[in-house]
């Protein structure tokens, strides 16, 4: 398999940056998983698709809008009326291909097309609120749920993977520009880039 290289390049600067008077408010990291797959259901097949994805990944996945699930080896969340973004290990695509029948839906391997960026820490909601016009408060955006939104023209599919942790999936070709915006937005809170 072709080895993937991070698109962040020289813009990825490990260490502490910005206003550190109150310590870094967020940690930023690239957390691209081995496999990223979009699973899309035919009309009326979303429940069947959710069951198939759950079977292949061991996740408890619901077909409700914005629903998601976070596991040790895999994650999945709703990104549209009939669609999920699923992440996992190297065998994910093979497992899903086995589990999702042709009459249920389709699979698209996006492992080389997206990267995942993690924003974690006590100021994560606050920093992300600068970039996206959605409500990041825990009551409005509970752990494991997903949201599809955009920062200007950069689409971002976001899953809350912990009480103060969000994973953002963005197009690989726009990732460095978005990362620079994310770092700039984090300056005020202080940020630590971690490997």
């Amino acid at each position, binding site marked *: 398999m072709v080895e993937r290289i991070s698109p962040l390049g020289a813009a990825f600067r490990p260490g502490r940056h910005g206003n550190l008077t109150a310590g870094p408010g967020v940690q930023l990291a690239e957390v691209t998983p081995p496999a990223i797959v979009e699973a899309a259901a035919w*009309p009326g097949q979303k429940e069947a698709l959710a069951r198939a994805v759950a079977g292949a990944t061991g996740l408890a996945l619901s077909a409700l*809008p*914005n629903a998601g699930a976070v596991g040790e080896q895999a994650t999945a969340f*709703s*990104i*549209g*009326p009939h*669609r999920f973004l699923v992440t996992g290990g190297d065998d994910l695509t093979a497992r899903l291909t086995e589990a999702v029948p042709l009459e249920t839906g389709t699979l698209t391997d996006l492992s080389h097309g997206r990267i995942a960026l993690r924003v974690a820490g006590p100021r994560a909601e606050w920093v992300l609120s600068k970039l996206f*016009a*959605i409500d990041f408060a825990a009551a409005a955006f509970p752990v494991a749920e997903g*949201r*599809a*939104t*955009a920062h200007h*023209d950069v*689409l971002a599919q976001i899953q809350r993977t912990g009480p103060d942790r969000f994973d953002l999936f963005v197009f690989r070709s726009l990732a460095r520009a978005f990362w620079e915006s994310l770092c700039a937005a984090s300056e005020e809170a202080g940020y630590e880039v971690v490997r």
Partner: protein
Amino acid sequence: MLIPCPHCGPRDVQEFSYQGDATRKRPDPASTDVHAWHAYVYDRPNPAGPHREYWQHIGGCRAHIVVERDTLSHEVLGAAFASDLSNQGGTRP
């Protein structure tokens, strides 16, 4: 202006792309009625009040939706998936 996407919930209008009037009816493709085609392509009532229109949640779930909007106040009176309405015999763009 907020549009209540049936999948995502209320979102800023900047996440959406306007896709046109959802009230016009396409003539039978086999029709050669010039007046019917002219009306379909050009005639818009442009009402000052409630209007039915297509939007796409382009910066979100990417669904096409039909929105009822008051053109005077920008109040959004309702939103539904365009696919559901089409399947119920609604108009198509």
